[in-house]
């Protein structure tokens, strides 16, 4: 599998969540994802980016176009150095929220992605990787 070096976007305010959505949309169009798949990955990115901002205290989003054989995809890596998530299973459960949302964020992002992984260390930060393949 090949990847490129990727674009890195800083997430430090709610404007940046909008910028992440727009950048993900542009990449998704570039690799030729269908309109529904574009919408799913942009929505998933919005959920995770908001989590990075609100729960992680800000961080970065890295956008990578990836190639596996003749399949192209879009992989997004969200990293923060925030307080981390102690109970990942609970964080992925619908309706569980520590913030102002509906608690659908991470679980919803997982459902909207072909790949989803999360690593978190309390006190150190969180890393979420999502991908959507063409």
């Amino acid at each position, binding site marked *: 599998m090949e990847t490129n070096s990727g674009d890195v976007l800083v997430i430090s305010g*709610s*404007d940046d*969540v*909008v910028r992440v*959505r*727009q950048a993900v*949309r542009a990449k998704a169009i570039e690799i030729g994802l269908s*309109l*529904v798949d*574009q*919408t*799913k990955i*942009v*929505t998933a990115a*919005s*959920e995770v980016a*908001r989590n990075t901002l609100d729960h992680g205290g800000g961080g970065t989003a890295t956008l990578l176009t990836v190639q596996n054989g003749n399949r192209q995809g879009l992989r997004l890596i969200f990293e923060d150095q925030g307080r981390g998530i102690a109970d990942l299973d609970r964080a992925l459960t*619908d309706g569980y929220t520590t913030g102002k*949302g*509906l608690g*659908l*964020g991470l*679980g*919803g992002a997982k*459902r*909207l992605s072909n790949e989803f992984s999360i690593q978190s260390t309390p006190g150190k930060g969180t890393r979420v990787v999502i991908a959507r393949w063409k």
Partner: protein
Amino acid sequence: MDRIPILQMGRALLITIQVDMHDQLALALEEDLAAKIASSGARGVLIDISSLEIIDSFIGRMLDNIAGVSRLMDAETVVVGMRPAVAITLVELGLSLSGVRTALNVDRGMAIIQQRLHDYEIADGD
């Protein structure tokens, strides 16, 4: 700070969301709309989301809140123009917006609001 404009047409309020909203803009719209319903006595609110390319859980919750607040203030909200890809994504996300009245397009949404206004005119005798 930016604001989303709220237009008044008789006893109806019209909102067209044409920008990719950041969270504060969505929250400001909730507050502005509640104030506008109170000052105008509007009984119907039409929200056109046909320009919105995504609805995530935050914007979904905003639409739900707006519908709930409007209902408490005796106004009915109709959300119109949801794109097919947005509807598919919302359901998969786990949000069905069951508290929000929707219509396919502006014409059908206005028909729902006009009917409500008409019913009230008869009841009010004006």
